[in-house]
């Protein structure tokens, strides 16, 4: 188990290093000069050159990569070209929005999806199953931004129960902060829940066809006991895999929802940084995401071992 963990960590570090090279190289090829972008169309060439010098952009590529990598190892992500504040501070500010949002929608989608999956699987073929899965199918098909706008028009514009968007910051109080995350997390959670419910249902159906379920039934266990004690646990592996993928998506792939609710999250930071050629910010965020995906995958793998004792002895 321990050597397995060490091996996975090594692979993780190598992946990070490879990602750093790819990210740096790719962004270097992208046309566009951050200094010219800052100073605009009327700027004189010497003003642009002076700014390039200030940003350190006139140094050779390799030197810039090495100094960035060196900083990275020491926990320093560099300074944003556009905002001229440390990238680390920018990212932590955004994570304070994106992480609670991701966790809330993940929790919400799990709490909806697993019961729905269990309900439909145990009522397979009945009207309630078809109807629920039909709704879930719609949930998968509806574009999330449209659903988000619908939520805004109902709860913010018409009922005026919740703000239409924005994030007041945690300084404004826990209540105000949470209130502003309610609609976005619903908008994010429901499509995810629909996907997850379908996965849960099909995984459960697979398991329910297994021999040991028949044995359990023959032993005299009730349907409900079988579902909770035997079937669910065995069906969790594909569900966990999808959950892991969803978490990475929810952390940074939520640019559309962040735009609809004008939330200062990671997705918008990276989008803005790309359009402004604030490459050092893009690099910082991408590295953070790569690290997150690696860690989440590791956790998912470890959780397989908890769910399925057979995997523990295999390593």
């Amino acid at each position, binding site marked *: 188990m321990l050597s397995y963990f060490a091996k996975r960590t090594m692979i993780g570090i190598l992946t990070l290093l490879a990602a750093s090279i790819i990210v740096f190289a790719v962004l270097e090829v992208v046309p566009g000069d951050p200094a010219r972008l800052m100073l605009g169309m009327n700027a004189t060439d010497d003003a642009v050159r002076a700014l390039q010098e200030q940003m350190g952009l006139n140094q050779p590529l390799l030197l810039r990569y090495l100094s960035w990598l060196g900083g990275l190892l020491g926990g320093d992500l560099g300074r944003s070209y556009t905002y001229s504040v440390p990238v680390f501070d920018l990212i932590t500010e955004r994570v304070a929005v994106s992480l609670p949002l991701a966790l809330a929608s993940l929790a919400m989608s799990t709490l909806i999806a697993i019961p729905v999956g269990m309900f439909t699987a145990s009522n397979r073929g009945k009207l309630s199953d078809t109807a629920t899965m039909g709704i879930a199918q719609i949930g998968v098909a509806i574009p999330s931004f449209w659903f988000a*706008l619908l939520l805004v028009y109902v709860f913010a514009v018409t009922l*005026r129960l919740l703000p239409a968007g924005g994030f007041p910051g945690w300084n404004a109080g826990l209540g105000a902060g949470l209130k502003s995350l309610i609609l976005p997390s619903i908008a994010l959670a429901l499509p995810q829940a629909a996907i997850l419910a379908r996965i849960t249902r099909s995984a459960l159906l697979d398991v329910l066809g297994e021999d040991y379920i028949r044995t359990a039934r023959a032993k005299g266990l009730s349907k409900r006991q079988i579902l909770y004690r035997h079937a669910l646990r065995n069906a969790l592996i594909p569900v966990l895999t999808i959950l892991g993928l969803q978490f990475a998506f929810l952390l940074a792939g939520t640019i559309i929802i962040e735009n609809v609710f004008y939330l*200062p999250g990671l997705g918008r930071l990276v989008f803005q940084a790309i359009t402004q050629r604030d490459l050092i910010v893009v690099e910082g965020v991408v590295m953070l995401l790569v690290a997150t995906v690696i860690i989440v995958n590791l956790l998912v793998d470890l959780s397989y071992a908890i769910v399925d004792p057979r995997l523990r002895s295999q390593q």
Partner: protein
Amino acid sequence: MKFWKLALASAAIAWLSSTVSLAAKTALVLGIVLEPPHLDPTAGAAAAIDEIVYANIFEGLTRIGPKGDVLPALAESWTKSDDGKVYTFKLHRDVKFHDGTSFGADDVKFSLDRARDGKSTNAQKGLFAAIDKVEIVDPLTVKVSLKQPSGDFLYNMGWGDAVIVAPESAELNKQTPIGTGPFRFDSWAKGSQIVIAKNPVYWGTPALLDKATFRVIPDPAAATAALLAGDVQAFPVFPSYETIPQFQADPRFKVVIGTTEGETVLGMNNKKPPFDNLKVRQAIAHAIDRKTLIDGAMFGLGTPIGSFFPPHHPSYVDLTSETNYDPQLAKKLLAEAGHADGFKTTLKLPPPTYARRGGEIIAAELREIGIEAEIIPVEWAQWLDQVFKNRDYDLTIVSHTEPNDLNIFARDDDYYFNYDNLAFKELVKQIDAVSDGSKRTELYKQAQKVLANDVPAAFLFQLPKTGIWDAKVEGLWENGPIQANDLTAVK
């Protein structure tokens, strides 16, 4: 059960009233589309910087008023020498920067010298090009000597890029701007909002608002929802033209369509064949129906222009008839230029809606006269790199939003139009040197005619300023003579 229903209902009501209760009248929340990269107007071109700090936090010697006129600001008065080369500014006394340091002639000298310096990263260094030297006469008097007379000098000193900063705080202005204005910087939650608060010790007429919050809302649908939900009370430059009728029909809101300095043009690469041929350029201009364009791309908002000059300017002449919509004439001109069967070309479009939507309409109109323009969407960074810097383009659409920018067609580096007309350059030089009003007007008219006839670009329309705010809000600017949200008189 009953108890729970009651509790739930009262909780809902409490929540409802807390959301609906209007913010105190002395606070205003404004929506802005783009977040500024930083807040130092002397080190960046982004209009979003001036939209927050101009006239609110920072002030210059002069300032541009709501009608585009030059007004005194930190300089209470000035005199000009007879040869037009020396300006002596008398400064206001008892002016303090927001950090408590006092303002004086040394700050003016510092700011102007800093902007002109070789290491300066001022985005509009050209504004200071005429300055020869800046001298301190006494703590409240500054003498600025020019290399040659400049009719635009006082106007130039009113730009956001020419504001006066203090040596003690200049380097920190990007994050914590320290100026002399009626508002001081309060806080900035990156990606979310910027708050400014009333300066209690302002030297001039104090602001009426205690607090103003600029909330960043880039998405047009979100901007609409935020106004409707009452989350923001004003959107000085509202991004979604299609929902404007909805607000016009709603008595809670005031919709104000004003003018801007944004001349929108179809830029042509004047050195690249076939656009080096005047007849081809004229043919393209005659192929475009400005009305269809404004209706289709701008939902009917925008004023047609026939040259590179804002219609609200006193020296404006309407030259749209010089290049009126006439596809037959366009075809004839193309044939005379040797392109009777038309040709293939490209049209590079930056992100704004006016360009993307306008580009599709123009491409369709060009097809009518036989020109196949392939549309290539680009982002700003690519546009600046390919079109602006490397001039690797045939046609492009862009709005030039700086005020008083006729001179971009007279730049020595030929600008991205690659337009090189010595006579026009001479004319612009004359305009800059003349400060007599009527003579200037005459020259301005001449310059407009040269451009209208020479068609270095096809002139399309003037961008509107689409402001929407709560009907109770007063004092916001209707027009945009510069890109700013002067909040000094807002209540």
